[in-house]
């Protein structure tokens, strides 16, 4: 299933479904495939930066660059696995791990103060000064019992999430014709 021909066999669908741990139904996978082919205009087998950024709703998102780095060059199977965190069947742990991966841009399994600062910068832009950002982060970290040089791991994220009183709403509906 290397190249994006417009035919998906039953075997392909089952392979993709297994790879994403059954978080998407077969119909949803077919819809996602149509969408993948629609975005991959030059049929290269993956979606390039230009093709992603040609979706204006994605391009105006403050975290688009970070997400793009995670999804750059993925083939269809990996693309579905990437989106599986947003399925209604995904576990809370899966979603929290996804958020962790967004922060952990160098992939070393630990989130440092600089990573937290980077994401906060993406979200707030020029509307908070760098100094203020550092102060805010240090303040909330200390209040939660961490230090400025602490390294966070996924279980920390999970703990913080469970302590909060609102549910993690991270779901996207795949339109099925």
């Amino acid at each position: 299933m290397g190249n994006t021909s417009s035919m998906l066999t039953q075997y392909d669908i089952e392979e993709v479904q297994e790879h994403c741990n059954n978080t998407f139904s077969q119909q949803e996978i077919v819809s996602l495939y149509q969408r993948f082919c629609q975005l991959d205009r030059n049929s290269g087998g993956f979606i390039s930066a230009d093709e992603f950024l040609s979706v204006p709703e994605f391009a105006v998102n403050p975290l688009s660059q970070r997400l793009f780095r995670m999804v750059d060059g993925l083939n269809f199977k990996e693309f579905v696995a990437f989106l599986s965190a947003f399925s209604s069947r995904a576990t809370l742990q899966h979603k929290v791990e996804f958020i962790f991966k967004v922060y952990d841009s160098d992939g070393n399994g630990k989130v440092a103060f600089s990573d937290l600062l980077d994401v906060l910068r993406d979200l707030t832009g020029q509307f908070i000064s760098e100094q203020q950002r550092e102060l805010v982060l240090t303040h909330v970290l200390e209040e939660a019992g961490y230090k400025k040089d602490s390294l966070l791991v996924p279980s920390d994220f999970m703990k913080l999430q469970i302590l909060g009183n609102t549910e993690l709403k991270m779901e996207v509906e795949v339109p099925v014709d």
Partner: protein
Amino acid sequence: MSKLTSSSSELDLDRPNIEDYLPTDSIQEPHAKLRLRDLLDISPTLTEAAGAIVDDSFTRCFKSNPPEPWNWNVYLFPLWCLGVVVRYGILFPGRVLILTFGWIIFLSCYIPVHLLLKGHDKLRKRLERALVELICSFFVASWTGVVKYHGPRPCARPKQVFVANHTSMIDFIVLEQMTAFAVIMQKHPGWVGLLQSTILESVGCIWFNRSEAKDREIVARKLREHVEGADNNPLLIFPEGTCVNNHYTVMFKKGAFELGSTVCPIAIKYNKIFVDAFWNSRKQSFTTHLLQLMTSWAVVCDVWYLEPQNMKPGETPIEFAERVRGIISVRAGLKMVPWDGYLKYSRPSPKHRESKQQCFAESVLRRLEEK
């Protein structure tokens, strides 16, 4: 796809407040004290981005939907084959003949009129107008166009412009066969460009170049001059600026709505029963598109001439444009989307991302103050 560039700040002025349309979930409303988990929880922003990856309203506007094949069983298939033979073998050559015949008549009348009546402008213009309407009728006949016009026919009066939704360049031909409009168009290469620079000049046309930012001021001035001229042909503008697939309308550019004249909306809806008239300029050239139309059974469409609108007191040109877009969309059964058609060619300006960032920043600072 050619390189995308950031749109200039001038194009920003065309857009109404997009924040009214986009989901505001990423703005965290509760005024509770700021905690670490609030900063770490980027799920609303991520959900928006993932939602855009999975489906977005902009791409939907330019999707050409292939028709469902109906020839899939034993008795329908031979019928379809017979249809193909009739369409390609009988109708198509017949139509080419009609079109050639039409061109011969047109050119043999147009060229003498254009050259010999140089001194008698009024008469020449009237004859040229009639001839352009004639050749457009021949074009429409060459696709067996079944066009139903509803509403009062446009008349040539100063201080009025006509606006319509845009699906293909044939929109112009369909409208032109009824009334000789002057039109504002993007200059095209090839034989279309040749037609544009010779024949369309006689009905009065204004050219623009999408990729030039300064071009807008020049064009705005030319529009104003044309509208104020007493014996210019009525001006037809397609404010979407690009071809959309006739299921949606994208945002109207405000240029047509700030000329201080009456705006007469025209709604065009094509019936996809025999052929999809959407010209997907990314997928096919205009020649291929025309050939596709000429080898189909018919092009069926409805044209509604709607009630002329004036800018209400206290209304901005952008609000006026959106109001007229609403009128056209409702009449033709199209859905409105909040995107600028030119995003096909350029990326959205940083302004939208910045306003999201500003919202979030303000909420963070505000919640920091809470005790």
